[in-house]
């Protein structure tokens, strides 16, 4: 926000400062409480992902056999696991990897989806037909199965999980992108631009692309939560990242048999996944609302 460009609530030029602050405050106050809370939550998760040592209370890998399976207490916020490791620190430390998987795989899915969707949406009839068939073939594979297959070929690991979940969820994005591009291509303002004589590349860049992509923001945010859930599914089947990495899915897999004896092992990582997905979706939908004026959430 530079002082040079005029803001719409016209203050006489040269009187920035408190007026701008008041504007910012007014904006902030108009944001629903839920979204604010979610933003704070997201910020915490981000800190946990980038600088986990700020939030960790113990070394997430340090075993302490004397403190095995302790319930949540003052010294161990989320209790300890079988080897005496602090669960809270492990959940915090696992944020980075889990987020990487979630964002990474959704990113991969989006890239594939964009490539396929644009080709189908903007290309000619034949390209559309061909690419649509290819998308249909991708759809015919249940997501988890395709992910399973790829993991079985290349072995478990973080890269494989990202690529596998990404490819598995991509056809949905492809369809959506295609639909968006098809719709925008025939929209009024595009026709107008064409009538005026703008070159196609400029039309695509200035009009089609931004308008088609904008609604996808909320999809992306929803997709991140779903990707993390998929990745943890793979970990449950024993095909996740190698221990002792405290990735959330791996933690859930390890804690399963202790559900009745040590419920905190299973509840905490699961709660983290759900909380993150919730926060990211709330914020995403709000952002989309502001960008678009109304929210149309579509499914990956």
């Amino acid at each position: 926000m530079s002082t040079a460009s005029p803001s719409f609530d016209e203050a006489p030029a040269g009187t920035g400062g408190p007026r701008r602050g008041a504007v910012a405050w007014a904006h902030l106050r108009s944001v629903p409480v839920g979204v604010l809370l979610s933003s704070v939550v997201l910020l915490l998760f981000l800190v946990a992902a980038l600088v986990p040592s700020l939030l960790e209370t113990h070394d997430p890998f340090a075993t302490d056999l004397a403190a095995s399976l302790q319930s949540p207490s003052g010294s161990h916020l989320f209790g300890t696991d079988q080897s005496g490791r602090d669960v809270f620190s492990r959940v915090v430390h696992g944020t980075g990897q889990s987020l990487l998987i979630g964002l990474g795989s959704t990113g991969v899915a989006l890239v594939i989806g964009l490539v396929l969707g644009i080709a189908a949406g903007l290309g000619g009839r034949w390209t559309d037909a061909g690419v649509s068939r290819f998308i249909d073939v991708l759809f015919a594979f249940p997501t988890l199965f395709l992910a399973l297959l790829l993991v079985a070929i290349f072995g478990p690991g973080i890269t494989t999980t990202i690529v596998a979940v990404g490819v598995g969820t991509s056809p949905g994005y492809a369809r959506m992108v295609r639909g968006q591009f098809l719709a925008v291509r025939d929209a009024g303002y595009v026709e107008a631009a064409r009538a005026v004589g703008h070159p196609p590349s400029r039309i695509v860049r200035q009009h089609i692309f931004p308008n088609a992509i904008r609604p996808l923001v909320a999809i992306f945010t929803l997709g991140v939560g779903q990707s993390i859930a998929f990745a943890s599914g793979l970990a449950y089947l024993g095909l996740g990242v190698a221990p002792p990495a405290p990735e959330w899915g791996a933690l859930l897999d390890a804690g399963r048999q202790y559900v009745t004896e040590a419920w905190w092992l299973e509840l905490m990582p699961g709660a983290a996944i759900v909380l993150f997905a919730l926060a990211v979706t709330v914020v995403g939908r709000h952002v989309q609302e502001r960008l678009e004026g109304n929210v149309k959430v579509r499914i990956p």
Partner: protein
Amino acid sequence: MSTTVDTFTVAETAAPRGRRRLAGRVGRRLVGAIGVLFAAATVTFFLQALMPGDRARLIINQSNGSLTNPTEAERAAVAERYHLDDSLLSQYAHYIGGLVRGDLGVSYFQHEKVTSIIGAQIGSTIVLTLVALVLAWIIALTVTVLAAGRDNVWSKLASGFQIVSASIPQYWVGTIFLVVFSIQLGIFPVESGSGIDGLILPAITLALPVAGFLGQVSQDEFSRLLHQPFVTSSRTRGSSDLSVRVRHVLRHAALPGVTLSGWALGFLFSGAVIVETVFARPGIGSVLVTAATARDIPLVTGVVIVSAAVYVVANLLVDLAYTVIDPRLKDQ
């Protein structure tokens, strides 16, 4: 198959004129479907071929249940039996030829025809999936009808519920259900079995994420439709809010959701893999996990083809159902 997931479906699919157009449409879909299946089989085959490691050795070790160094003679005997040393193309031709005849091959480790293995297990999964789909619809629509378009605490909660359920890891919630309702409270049996009461918990677990998605789509559509003129006119005629919602809006709001049901089936099949393991239900989901980790190629490709076929057929039916539900498409 050109069903799409967003509201542009209506604008984008061509509206046929009369029955002949419908027949032609179905015919084209059918051909497309077969093409999709063929492509899926090919993709699967070549993906599996990429797997590292010596397959003959794997088969021998699997049969013995231990890691050994088979002699060359032993290895050759197995390789011959399963055509493992043939060229890739000849293996592929062999495979496609079998597919056309309806022969999906023989499992490496179960020594039975793949078709019979799948046939024995698929019924259970289909039942589970259909029940889950129905449950998902019931949950989604109930929440939608009651909460959409309103701006109270309940609708916020409903939205929250839908978002949460869409991203909940299924085995996590499944385990919690299992422990709480089956083991601790004893309401449902721990082992799924074949009865109805053994079906409920797995079906709910499987249905939750789909309910979340369907709910969100329907809810958005519902809210949008509540402002349409035909709704206002209904209200002015004196219909109650609930009856307006149920009798007039629901049918239109359900449209995008119906399209989604095709996709939902694929998602449910995927989720069945996990739910069947959590609740120890036999089905092709668990067959698939074992087969994939054991690299039982004939069985894996067989399951893929069959599930792709189920998906394709389901989408075909959804397409036809769509024309029935949306009067704008049926007669123009």
